């Protein structure tokens, strides 16, 4: 057993940490968030140039042969600087769907240009009634000659406004919550019949409500198998869970570092407030929580490629539960220990807290994943 990074991985880590340090000072981030897109094309070009966009894809797919460990290294650094570029929807979700379920033509048409930095993706699965149930799909795709017609509404679609392709889950057969009968489609974002309502999210990212009104797609838009898309989709979401867990670990470490510095320097009653035992213990609990989060994320990073589906699912859900617990404790504690300053927009503390709060909901709340973990683990 060896849980240390290889030399190559260390280099990636140093590179991405340097990027965050040099390009993502908090005030720079504020300016990036205020641009029309909400992210910088220059940064995206740099991601392509440095080979990061293809880092975690196989060489056969035009990537550089890395895997989840490399993804986690990048995501953790992005989390530490609250990076806004749409990595998660484009590379992890869209790229992930193509790598796992795409055919050669789709990989060539979509994945290769994504790795080159020329295409971005969005993935649409949330529906107003669906909450965290990936099988609760009311959007329909009806057979239409050799292709399909997609209709319905998807909510909170991250990066839809910048995406060239929107991947969408749609029902091709069965009842609204049947696991069978779900198909994943890659739809050109400029297709006739797609309308969007764009908005910023609480954590300064961009998302949209996307309505599909009789959008025609060819049979070549099907990613994976018709009617059997759920397993592919769930697997991709589980991989994305590991990625956001790594991002959250980056957020937590950044928060702990700032909070520790603050309680060492902020004086009240003539002493640094870090001299008060109540804050010392809370800071220790923050530290412990971050360690547990890091451990569970590492576990999930290493198990997410396991051959056994139950092992993979448990790994993702287990990590998500831990991240939720640790993220909430650390986020709330960082705000509390910063006092009034922690509740302001001015300090980055509240921005990390907001991101951690959104990660808590993203891909399913800790409660949802606790239930999922429980049924996987106790089934016997």
């Amino acid at each position: 057993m060896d849980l240390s990074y290889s030399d190559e991985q260390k280099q990636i880590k140093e590179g991405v940490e340097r990027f965050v340090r040099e390009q993502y000072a908090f005030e720079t981030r504020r300016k990036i968030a205020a641009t029309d897109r909400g992210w910088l094309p220059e940064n995206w070009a740099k991601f392509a140039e440095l080979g990061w966009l293809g880092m975690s894809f196989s060489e056969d797919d035009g990537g550089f042969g890395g895997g989840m460990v490399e993804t986690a290294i990048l995501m953790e650094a992005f989390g530490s600087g609250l990076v806004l570029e749409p990595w998660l929807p484009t590379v992890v979700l869209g790229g992930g769907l193509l790598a796992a379920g795409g055919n050669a033509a789709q990989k060539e048409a979509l994945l290769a240009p994504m790795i080159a930095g020329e295409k971005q993706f969005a993935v649409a699965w949330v529906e107003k009634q669906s909450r965290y149930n990936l099988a609760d799909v009311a959007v329909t795709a009806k057979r239409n000659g050799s292709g399909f017609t997609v209709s319905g509404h998807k909510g909170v679609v991250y990066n839809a406004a910048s995406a060239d392709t929107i991947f969408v889950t749609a029902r091709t057969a069965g009842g609204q919550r049947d696991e069978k009968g779900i198909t994943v489609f890659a739809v050109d974002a400029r297709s006739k019949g797609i309308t969007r309502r764009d908005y910023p999210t609480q954590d300064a990212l961009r998302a949209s409500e996307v309505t599909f009104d009789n959008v025609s797609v060819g049979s070549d838009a099907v990613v994976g198998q018709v009617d059997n898309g759920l397993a592919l989709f769930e697997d991709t979401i589980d991989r994305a869970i590991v990625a956001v867990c790594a991002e959250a670990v980056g957020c937590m470490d950044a928060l702990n570092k700032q909070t520790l510095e603050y309680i060492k320097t902020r004086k009240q009653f003539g002493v640094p407030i870090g001299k008060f035992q109540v804050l010392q213990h809370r800071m220790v609990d923050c530290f412990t929580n971050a360690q547990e989060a890091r451990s569970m994320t590492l576990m999930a990073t290493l198990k997410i490629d396991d051959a056994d589906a139950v092992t993979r699912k448990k790994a993702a859900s287990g990590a998500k539960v831990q991240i939720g617990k640790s993220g909430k404790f650390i986020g709330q504690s960082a705000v509390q220990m910063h006092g009034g300053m922690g509740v302001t927009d001015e300090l980055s503390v509240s921005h990390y807290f907001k991101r951690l709060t959104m990660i808590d909901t993203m891909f399913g709340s800790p409660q949802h994943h606790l239930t999922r973990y429980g049924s996987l683990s106790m089934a016997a």
Partner: protein
Amino acid sequence: MDLAFSRDDIAFRDEVQAFVRTNLPQDVAQKVAHGKHLERDDYMRWQQALGRKGWLAYTWPKKHGGPGWSVTQRYIFENVCADLNAPGIIPFGSKMVGPVIYTFGNEAQKQRFLPGIRESTVWWCQGYSEPGSGSDLASLRTRAVREGDHYMVNGSKTWTTMGHWADWIFCLVRTNPDAKPQEGISFLLIDMKTPGITVKPIIMADGGHEVNEVFFDNVRVPAENLVGKEGEGWTYAKFLLANERLGIAAVPQSKRGVEALKQIARSETSGGRKLIEDQEFRNRLADLEIQVTALEYTELRALSAMAGGGAPGPEVSFLKIRGSEIQQRITELAVEAVGYYAMPYQPALLWHGANEEPIGPEYAHVAAPRYFNARKTTIYGGSNEIQRNVISKMVLGL
């Protein structure tokens, strides 16, 4: 002991309900029901309606122009107001500076300031905290130097809630830098229009503007605006903070918050069922309701003791601790209840009541901002760490 209200209490409740139903502007009630941000005018219309009826300063004794209500009547009034979605009364005038003025001020000050507080024609704000003085309030440094018939004030205050709407500010200032920290402090009333005062907004994590920094640059304050004696300000400040901590439990608001959560859980779905039928979520909601009930009965015990002639003691700190934690818990559960639709951020709708469709359900877009904002409740009015110190020292003798 008797939990039931007397016939008189019930008649009183009916009277309050009838008044609120007739006089609370409907647009304001709607905003409160949906957890939206209120404008100065929204508060003023409601408070002035109460003021005309003589009910705004509802905790005041009759001799200072209050209704002279019993603690039971106050409790009924607060609960009816919360049930009918009345905005909370801004405490700075009627609950804070008013009692300080009628308890420690001179006759001229009472004549001059109390009517404007009772009728809500003057908006007050609080000048306590400073950038270097948060929990350690007695370390404040804003300086007031007596020069003939006035004080010259220099320094700055922070976290001044709604200071940008205020006509007057009551301030703790240092008049004697050589005395012990608590002994060199005085209580000054300052007109916000006085030259030399600058108000700078502080934007909160939810994007809203409710607190400010207030800067004093050679501000001349007439010496007649000193309340009580020079150097006695700390005593008045403590008197005021005890009052502040009582209302801070926000029991009626939390009861309303639990009911609102139930409504959300009835609208939201999970796995094809109503969220409120989800046993796990239901248990957490039930747990919250029990916490609110424990808080309510603790407050009733404190009120009952006060009705018997006692004063609010250090146990009031416990109401603040639990009250603030429960307020936070309510907002936390709301974020969970609305799922993905906690994510869209709609500042125009949230802060300016813009005519814009909510992205998700009406109740969803306020959930996360309220959760972020509510983190302040365990920080302000003496952080919960400080409140626990007070209890360990004053109640447990540790």
